[in-house]
């Protein structure tokens, strides 16, 4: 029998629209849509197939890593080393393939190298109790240096027997959509489900909300933290492999400064740097907005020197928006 209490307990307090408009990702999405509309009116170039293809591909790399970053930020941490994990992964796969190894084995090595960076970060942060900012700042420097040592700081643009496969995977398209976009879609859907429906996801948010409570509840906080940093590094490694194929050549300045764009995308998408909040879809939309802004400046003929100003404004507006909304409660 359904009692009044059951109805009260099971009812959502707000209508779906009220819930929706409380989500930062909703407003960021609206902003991105408005920007796209304005651009298609102002320039013919924006809606051209070629340009949309480029936008879709370019933002996918940042968005993939932003999903990993969201996991880290939601658990109350930060990972500055992702840009360097990108270059290390790209360099490992290109050196391995240039030496004659096949694509899949080399990709496995590249992901393995990135995962080791994540393992290193995670162990120092979770078991040695060191601040995430400092540890990942250290590996930011160390991993890029490793990539330089590995390649002797040379550009690599010949990838052995599977050369074409790598270029096809990173730079090709199927059904008119670039491959990195497929990777992003799968990752975004899977991680949205994982964040919401698995213990791993639930505990990750619990750690970000109140680490002490998570420890007292018997959650293996340390092991979980290691896995979170490894996940973040894995997304960076994945992006590194795709970028190597897209660019067709790998240099040691690949992914330089990328960590800041990635963090910006996650934060614009609703990840709270204080921990406990964030979602995969938000990270994707945040990355999309950044790419649309970048693209629009180029198409409108505005100097790219202004790019940082626009992205910076968006980060601050997004966080300010969140702040005001919480004040009203």
């Amino acid at each position, binding site marked *: 029998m359904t009692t009044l209490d059951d109805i009260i307990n099971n009812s959502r307090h707000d209508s779906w629209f009220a819930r929706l408009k409380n989500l930062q990702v909703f407003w960021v999405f609206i902003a991105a849509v408005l920007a796209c509309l304005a651009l298609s009116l102002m320039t013919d170039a924006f809606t051209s197939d070629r340009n949309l293809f480029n936008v879709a591909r370019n933002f996918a790399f940042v968005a993939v890593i932003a999903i990993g970053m969201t996991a880290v930020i939601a658990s109350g941490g930060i990972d500055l080393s992702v840009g360097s994990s990108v270059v290390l992964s790209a360099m490992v796969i290109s050196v391995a393939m240039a030496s004659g190894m096949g694509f899949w084995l080399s990709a496995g090595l590249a992901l393995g190298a990135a995962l080791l960076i994540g393992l290193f970060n995670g162990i120092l942060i979770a078991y040695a109790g060191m601040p995430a900012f400092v540890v990942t700042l250290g590996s930011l420097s160390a991993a890029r240096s490793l990539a330089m040592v590995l390649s002797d700081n040379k550009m690599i643009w010949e990838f052995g027997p599977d050369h074409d496969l790598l270029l096809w995977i990173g730079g090709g398209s199927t059904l008119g959509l670039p491959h990195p976009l497929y990777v992003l879609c799968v990752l975004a859907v899977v991680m949205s489900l994982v964040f919401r429906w698995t*213990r791993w996801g639930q505990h990750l948010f619990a750690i970000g909300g109140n680490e002490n409570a*998570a420890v*007292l*509840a018997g959650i293996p906080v340390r092991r979980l933290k290691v896995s979170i940093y490894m996940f973040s590094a894995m997304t960076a490694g994945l992006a590194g492999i795709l970028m190597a194929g897209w660019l067709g050549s790998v240099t040691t300045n690949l992914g330089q400064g990328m960590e800041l764009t990635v963090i910006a995308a996650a934060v614009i998408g609703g990840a709270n740097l204080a921990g406990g909040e964030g979602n995969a879809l938000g990270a994707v939309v945040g990355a999309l907005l950044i790419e649309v802004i970048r693209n629009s400046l180029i198409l409108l003929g505005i100097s790219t020197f202004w790019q940082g100003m626009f992205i910076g404004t968006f980060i601050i507006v997004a966080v300010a928006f969140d702040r005001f909304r919480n004040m009203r409660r």
Partner: protein
Amino acid sequence: MSRLVFSGISKNFGAIQALSDVSLSIEPGEVLGLMGDNGAGKSTLAKIIAGNFRPSTGEISIDGISVVFHKPIDAQREGVAMVYQDLALADNLSAASNVFLGREPLRRFGPIRYIDYKRMNTVSADLFKQLKSETRPRQLVRRMSGGQRQAVAIARTLLSEPKIVMMDEPTAAISVRQVAEVLDLIRRLRDRGISVILISHRMPDIFSVSDNIAVLRRGRLVCRKPVGASSPEEVTGLITGAIDAA
């Protein structure tokens, strides 16, 4: 038969004698108010029951069976639950998620196991109803009053069907109306036959909800009697040492 019996419990940390020869028992469905000044040994006693410390000498028994706790998890297995002073809740999660934190029920879908939110919500709604608290399972803890947070913390302990619930200063730092709510929660626990050990500095709370009162001073038990046979004045005297023992 007594629910919990301490016999001759002493605890020393090096040269510091935190507890000396404390013998105390508590019945099922009894609320015991444990009082004492800072450093009197309340926290040490609480930590011994919760399994954080082992007593230097003495014996603990639950339902007539002697127990030794090496870790907090051992105490939990024997039915001792602790409601922490800072409540240990994750603000960003819902009430139901907090009740089940670390013990989420899972469902299977082929090889995939996912969290059974439906079950979490119905079980927590039921627990809140038993506690007569107006807490909704889906509500975020961040938006809750102090009393509702207590209800979540207590519902969390109820999930493991405890025999003994220890509460450390549950009424500190919440409003007067919410204090009444928390005291009601304690009565609900008592009605279910759970023994409650209430550690508090607030005399009115102890006198309104406890059946018996125990006072520690400098690691010694100086009083254990029914609340009706004592008075706030006497307890104050016992705590400060103006009255030697009663």
